[in-house]
């Protein structure tokens, strides 16, 4: 089974769109250098300080990954508890919904007060942002099991643990991956916002953006944004690659719900 080569119809439209975007940007930047720096300037920033961007990218990536891992892990554990203990679901789901509609980044300053300028507030914000979408999808995944397959294992007197392991977890994997594709970029948002608020640590792309902006150095700001975009794409791509590896081609894809 070979993958279809990317046909011209697939890559040409986005390529043209990108070219048009670059052109418009350049035209605009010529007349408004303090709104949009020239792309050549952005690229030369990247080119002349690769170490700076790499180091800060690494910090932000670590914050996002640790935060996402913790948030998704806790969300999944809670989804299991909520699934098996209905009372807990009824008690906690409304709270989680409120949490979800609250712009959680607003508590970032409070977290800095609580935890200082270290990594902790960044982890916490990133994990808070991924928590709800992952929880909702994990719950949906644990529920979405073929009822006839459940009947079948019930006639075999399968234990709860066996049903979880043999049916519910495999059935929930497409949901978990779909949630992962949403959560990875979200965790990056969380890390960057936390850095905006707690820039004292002097590390991370968010910190770099704030510092450079205060100096009017738009080239560095946009260079950092480009690096963030690359990180986001890489994290998303990693989830997709892992999904391909784990689920192969035999699973119908399931659309994730956004929290």
């Amino acid at each position: 089974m070979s993958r279809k080569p990317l046909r011209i119809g697939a890559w040409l439209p986005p390529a043209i769109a990108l070219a048009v975007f670059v052109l418009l940007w350049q035209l605009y930047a010529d007349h408004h250098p303090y709104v949009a720096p020239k792309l050549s300037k952005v690229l030369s920033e990247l080119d002349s300080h690769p170490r700076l961007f790499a180091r800060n990218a690494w910090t932000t990536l670590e914050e996002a990954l640790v935060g996402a891992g913790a948030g998704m892990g806790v969300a999944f554990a809670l989804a299991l508890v909520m699934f098996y203990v209905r009372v807990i679901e009824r008690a906690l789901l409304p709270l989680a919904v409120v949490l979800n509609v609250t712009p959680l980044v607003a508590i970032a300053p409070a977290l800095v007060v609580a935890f200082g300028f270290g990594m902790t507030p960044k982890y916490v914000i990133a994990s808070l942002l991924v928590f709800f979408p992952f929880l909702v999808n994990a719950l949906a995944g644990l529920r979405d099991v073929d009822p006839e397959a459940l009947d079948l294992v019930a006639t075999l007197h399968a234990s709860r643990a066996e049903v979880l392991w043999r049916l519910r977890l495999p059935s929930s994997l497409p949901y978990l991956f779909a949630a992962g594709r949403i959560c990875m970029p979200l965790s990056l948002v969380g890390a960057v916002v936390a850095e905006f608020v707690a820039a004292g640590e002097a590390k991370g792309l968010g910190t770099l953006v704030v510092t450079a902006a205060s100096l009017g150095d738009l080239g560095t700001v946009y260079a950092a944004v480009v690096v963030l975009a690359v990180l986001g794409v890489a994290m998303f791509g990693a989830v997709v690659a892992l999904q391909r590896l784990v689920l192969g081609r035999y699973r119908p894809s399931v659309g994730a719900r956004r929290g």
Partner: protein
Amino acid sequence: MTPTDDAIVFRGLHKTFGRGNERVKVLDGVDLSVQRGQFVTVIGPSGCGKTTLLRLAAGLVEPDAGSVSLFGASVADATAEKRIGFVPQAPALLPWRTVLDNVLLPLQVNRKVPSSKAAPDAVELLTALGLGDALQRRPRELSGGMQQRVAIARAFVFDPPVLLMDEPFAAVDELTRESLRHSLLTIWQASGKTVLFVTHSVTEAVALSDVVVVMSANTHGIQRVIPIDLPRPRDDLVETTPEFLALERELRLELRKGSK
């Protein structure tokens, strides 16, 4: 006849679904005994409670009154001992497992029950059902008829003494049905299992059964029990004999009575 000759016994079964205005009376006093080793088919109009009867025997539905016993024990004991092979109407295969792994599933759950000495080998079973080349394929790569064969293999693989099958061939074309029914007859004949089989097909009922149970939607119970005294083993030729056609006719007339 001693009581132990009865594999499945339904006694005074009543079942109503829903509450208030939504109440649906499905079974109103059903008594039925299925003897050990018999192939018994349940037929009747849609909604008369065939699936409910089967699900009661499988422990998936609780009766409002009355009892079901399997080999003198409760349904709960029978499932705990893995004595029931259940074939649902949809094959209910796990899409992430290969054909072979799907068949092995019953051996992987509830392992407290020791596996039967006489249990057939999964690969041999699948080969006998014409799936020898498909062991490593995924369910979605199979036709509907092949998926049903996998579901049948899965019910036989742990050698349960009772098979409960709910219209397993309903979703496939007539020719495939015929071939499935002969595959089933072949592996069943050698196994000595007791089968309770639900169908809508008159031909299927006569071709497979020792006894056909006709259920009625009007009385919510059993309308008539027709013994099928055709010789075994049966091949496809039996379906053209005058005796077979006469039984089909009798059954058809009986069904017509019950659906008024």
